[in-house]
């Protein structure tokens, strides 16, 4: 593995009586596309939230490019981008204004040309100055991706970015993901479309009830299971985890 983009040791997150993430150890190398898979409620989003600052881990250490996400939160948040699962938008601002604001919040001096370039990349230029509430669901989803990229993060989390998105847009999005990886961005994604993970990911982790069931290179994982479809392997591993 190359230098570590993400290093988790013993990460645990408990909510009232529920352990959402249970002693997770994980390393993700720089420049990887890493798929974090699991059934609903497995702990994928909570784990991502612990790294990105949306959740406070109960215990364990979390490092992004060697920096502690709690003690050096300013440094790590400048390095990390997040496309959240839920679509949120501020009705007061247009897509262009939203990008300019997000740049500023991330500590980058707002740059109108960069905002325009991102809007073009994600086919939102025609809605540059439209009220955000007028955007379709797919457009809002694309705006979320653009917002996550305003500060050129070195580690990008995509939390189910293709949920409710049509086939054409999904293809466009994955094309953009590949382009980002070519530029050196490390990508950690969650998705319920396992064929996409199978096609895109260098390595795959499966999480169930807060614990990692498997972390393995995609090719090794498929080879170990006689090149079965990832979907079949996923079901088999989850059932095995439930039984054991």
């Amino acid at each position: 593995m190359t230098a570590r983009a993400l290093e988790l040791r013993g990460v645990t997150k408990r909510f009232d009586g529920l352990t959402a993430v249970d002693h997770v150890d994980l390393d993700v190398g720089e420049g990887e596309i890493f798929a974090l898979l699991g059934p609903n409620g497995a702990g994928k989003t909570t784990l991502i939230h612990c790294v990105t600052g949306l959740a406070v881990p109960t215990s364990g250490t979390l490092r992004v490019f060697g920096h502690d996400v709690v003690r050096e939160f300013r440094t790590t948040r400048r390095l990390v981008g997040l496309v959240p699962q839920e679509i949120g938008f501020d009705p007061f601002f247009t897509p262009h204004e939203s990008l300019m604001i997000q740049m500023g919040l991330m500590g980058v001096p707002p740059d109108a040309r960069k905002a325009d370039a991102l809007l073009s990349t994600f086919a939102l230029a025609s809605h540059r100055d439209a009220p955000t509430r007028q955007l379709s669901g797919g457009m809002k989803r694309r705006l979320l991706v653009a917002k996550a990229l305003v500060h050129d993060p070195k580690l990008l989390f995509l939390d189910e970015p293709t949920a409710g998105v049509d086939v054409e847009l999904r293809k466009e999005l994955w094309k953009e993901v590949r382009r980002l990886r070519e530029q050196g961005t490390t990508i950690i994604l969650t998705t319920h479309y396992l064929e996409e993970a199978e096609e895109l990911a260098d390595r795959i982790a499966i999480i169930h009830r807060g614990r990692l069931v498997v972390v393995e290179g995609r090719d090794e994982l498929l080879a170990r299971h006689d090149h079965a479809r990832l979907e079949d392997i996923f079901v088999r591993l989850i059932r095995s985890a439930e039984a054991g």
Partner: protein
Amino acid sequence: MSEGWNPVGLRTLFLKEVRRFTKVWLQTVLSPLVTTSLYFLVFGVALGSRLREVDGVRYIEFVVPGLMMLAMINNAFLNTSSSLFQSKINGTIVDLLVSPLGAWEIVAAYTAAAMLRATVVGALVWCVAAAFAGPMMSSLGWTILFGAAVSACFAMLGLLAAIFATKFDHLAVFPNFVLTPLTFLGGVFYSVDMLPEPWQTLSRLNPILYLVNGLRHGLLGVSDVSPWWGALAMTALLSALAAVSVTVVARGTRLRD
């Protein structure tokens, strides 16, 4: 990379909050002005002409500092509480929480924007008052001090209300059940010296009384209580609210999972 601070983020959050209230200026700036003008018409012009002087000043002048304070308190509180609560509801709080902004920067930006809105509304109320009763300014220093500190205090209270609220009903609890009664019983429309005991003594336990009288001292040069007591109460309140707000935001209480 040094941890440092995030001046660009602080400035951006402040400007974002300012643009949020200026985009709906009819609701945020003009609406309180209309309400206050009605107060002047009813209490100042219609009833005031039938009332004797209070503390040596005409009644229409006497009510000006209280009405200014009422407008500033409400607008400072509403600016932070509505903005932060809406961002919790519509999910855009994520944009703030993933940013490299520290707790004090978040509190400072929200508070400064709310102070600006309160100052604009307060200044406009003063202009309306000047149209009805003539311009009044006894001490610019005391006026600015009380105006700024009161706005900051109630902006932070609004921030805390939005953090702890889980539904819109909760946001209305503080202004309706605490703020409005304390304000109306805090000497906005009368001098506490006019009250019989034990109400006079009880009124002196109301912090709003000291704030209203502080501004009254600044504008009219008269006051039921020494402005120094007001300044002391305000310093204590401001320090406590700043400490609590920054601690709550830093811990992520009701903001981060």
